[in-house]
């Protein structure tokens, strides 16, 4: 065995004066960085193992620990940052594909940060959301272009039967994360928070644990290429069905939950034997064309007796606009677009960082395309991919989204520090793991509360911003790009985004 040339990424600093040898760090570190030597009465650290998750830092009762990027560095070079060198070393040592978790970390332009929002001054009053109603209710589903409502004895009466709609009390849902990728406790937290917040969470492709059928009215069940846990009862347990074609973090790539994570409960839920790898093929092997997709959409609609919306999720790829148009015409009630920064439990690093496109551009293009084709009402547009705060959400809605999925942000609210080791199954925060010793770290009571708080906080902020614009219903912001202006974008970008530059 030759010497590894991979350097420690993090430095563990322990203030020996503050360290009380309580060994909390040792017990909390699932990567076994810390150890205690009783003879010396000292703690030791193996920095090579540190992933920088900060669990020990947070749990150290005396705050004796500091974890920081390792200061020792190679000579800085524009083309050869340490990241590039490290990857090469890793591959030279393993001969394997690089694996990562979460979304793109290369920092492709985040357009949200180049968009600014409008507010009312003088000519129209801003509205104080503390004093006036401020409506975020959102409906997901196909809408007819017109509806027949007549007055009968002075009361409006609906004469048109509308296709099924999901009702959201806030335009944010929890994105698809499978039971298997995330733990039972996290699933439960998401389900309960979605229920408490009047919105939806998405099962991902992991099936639906029996315990969570009770949250069905707030559940979007996914049907992905592996068809894990998909059966009639499952499809009918949720409020809507989402066919997952692609994922923003890994367009064109299937999924893989390693066998070690497939315990008894996951096995039952996914309908696969205990300990077997859960492999989702790259394509659905019954969808090789748009007409195949149409068949699946209608097969699922049959299965749910046309009582629930059926949508399709795709990764934001170059011709997303055309694909989305095809999906709407194929009968989908909603289209989900997942951008380059969308999270994942495991993806090839190269794919994660370089395949697809930022959600802002895809969203703008798809919304515009559907409008140009006059079919924007025929499906709702849900977007996902790295939403970090409420203004990202507001901007997405102004660009044309009906609702957004938040995934990584939801996990961060549960403790995730984006250490990107989900694929190891050792998540020190107990989120993306099935290790029963680790999963306890998410207390579903606390998890539910934190997620509910997050949605509540973002909703309050959205209301505040809406009020500032003089708008009291979210539908008046949706697709209202006049409330967006860009800063520092070029003409082509402005054109794709359909927004004016600030000052115009």
């Amino acid at each position: 065995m030759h010497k590894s040339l991979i350097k420690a990424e993090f430095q563990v600093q322990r203030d020996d004066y503050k360290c009380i040898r309580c060994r909390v760090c040792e017990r909390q570190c699932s990567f076994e960085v810390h150890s205690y030597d009783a003879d010396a009465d000292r703690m030791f650290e193996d920095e090579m193992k540190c992933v920088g998750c900060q669990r020990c830092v947070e749990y150290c009762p005396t705050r004796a620990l500091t974890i920081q990027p390792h200061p020792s560095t190679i000579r800085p070079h524009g083309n050869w940052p340490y990241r590039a060198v490290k990857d090469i070393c890793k591959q030279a040592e393993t001969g394997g594909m690089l694996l990562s978790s979460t979304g793109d970390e290369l920092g492709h332009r985040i357009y949200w940060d180049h968009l600014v929002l409008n507010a009312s001054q003088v000519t129209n009053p801003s509205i104080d959301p503390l004093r006036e109603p401020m409506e975020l209710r959102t409906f997901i589903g196909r809408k007819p272009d017109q509806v027949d409502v007549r007055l009968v004895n002075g009361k409006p009466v609906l004469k048109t039967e509308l296709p099924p709609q999901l009702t959201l009390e806030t335009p944010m849902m929890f994105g698809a994360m499978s039971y298997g990728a995330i733990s039972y406790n996290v699933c439960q937290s998401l389900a309960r928070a979605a229920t408490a917040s009047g919105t939806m969470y998405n099962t991902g492709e992991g099936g639906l644990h029996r315990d969570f059928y009770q949250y069905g009215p707030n559940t979007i069940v996914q049907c992905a290429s592996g068809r894990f846990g998909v059966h009639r009862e499952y499809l009918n347990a949720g409020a809507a069905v989402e066919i997952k074609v692609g994922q923003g973090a890994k367009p064109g790539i299937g999924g893989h939950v390693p066998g070690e994570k497939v315990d008894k409960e996951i096995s039952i839920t996914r309908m696969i034997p205990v300990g077997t790898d859960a492999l989702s093929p790259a394509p659905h092997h019954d969808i090789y064309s748009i007409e195949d997709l149409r068949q699946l959409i209608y097969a699922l609609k049959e299965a749910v007796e046309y009582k629930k919306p059926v949508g399709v999720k795709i990764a934001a790829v170059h011709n997303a606009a055309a694909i989305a148009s095809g999906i709407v015409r194929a009968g989908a009630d909603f289209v989900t677009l997942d951008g380059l920064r969308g999270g994942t439990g495991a993806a090839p690093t190269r794919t994660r960082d370089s395949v697809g496109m930022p959600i802002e551009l895809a969203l703008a293009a798809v919304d515009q395309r559907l409008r140009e084709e006059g079919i924007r009402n025929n499906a709702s547009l849900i977007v996902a991919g790295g939403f970090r705060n409420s203004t990202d959400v507001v901007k997405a809605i102004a660009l044309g989204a009906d609702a957004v999925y938040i995934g990584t942000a939801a996990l961060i609210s549960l403790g995730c520090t984006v250490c990107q080791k989900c694929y190891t199954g050792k998540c020190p925060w107990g989120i993306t793991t099935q290790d029963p010793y680790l999963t306890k770290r998410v207390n579903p009571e606390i998890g539910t509360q934190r997620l509910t708080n997050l949605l509540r906080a973002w909703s309050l902020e959205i209301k505040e911003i809406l009020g500032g614009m003089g708008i009291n219903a979210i539908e008046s912001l949706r697709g209202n790009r006049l409330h967006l202006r860009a800063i520092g974008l070029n003409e082509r970008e402005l054109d794709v985004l359909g927004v004016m530059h600030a000052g115009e």
Partner: protein
Amino acid sequence: MATKAKTTKKRRRVQADEKVCIGCKLCEVACIVAHSKSKNIIRAFNEETPRALSRVLVEESKPLTFALQCRHCDDPPCAVACMTGALRKDPETGAVLHDREKCVGCWMCVMVCPYGGIQRDMREGKAASKCDLCLELDEPACVAACPNAALFVVEDED
């Protein structure tokens, strides 16, 4: 009239939810600090010798972990067994309290506590050591310190 004769049924104890106890043992750390002289974590551990004892014990059999301490029984066997009167159930709070000054360290209480909730404290002479519910604090230190809300105070009254 015999006011103190009737035994109290008030009961208060710290309960652990093993489903979310993560075995970090911060409860033990907090208990030690709360029962230290200085109440300062670094001094309590690094300067006070011998160190205060934790009255809560995290039991472990991975993945299972849970904190356990005195259950403050309705009819505490330790108080029955105590030959010095050091252990008694306080009618006001329902807490089973221990008077270190009276205790001689005969370990009868250790022998009869079905929870194993009493330890021997060998500092400055010997005496039993057990959960006192941190009655002088707003809530028991272990409960306050639990990062995952796995510990909570349960109170029931007759």
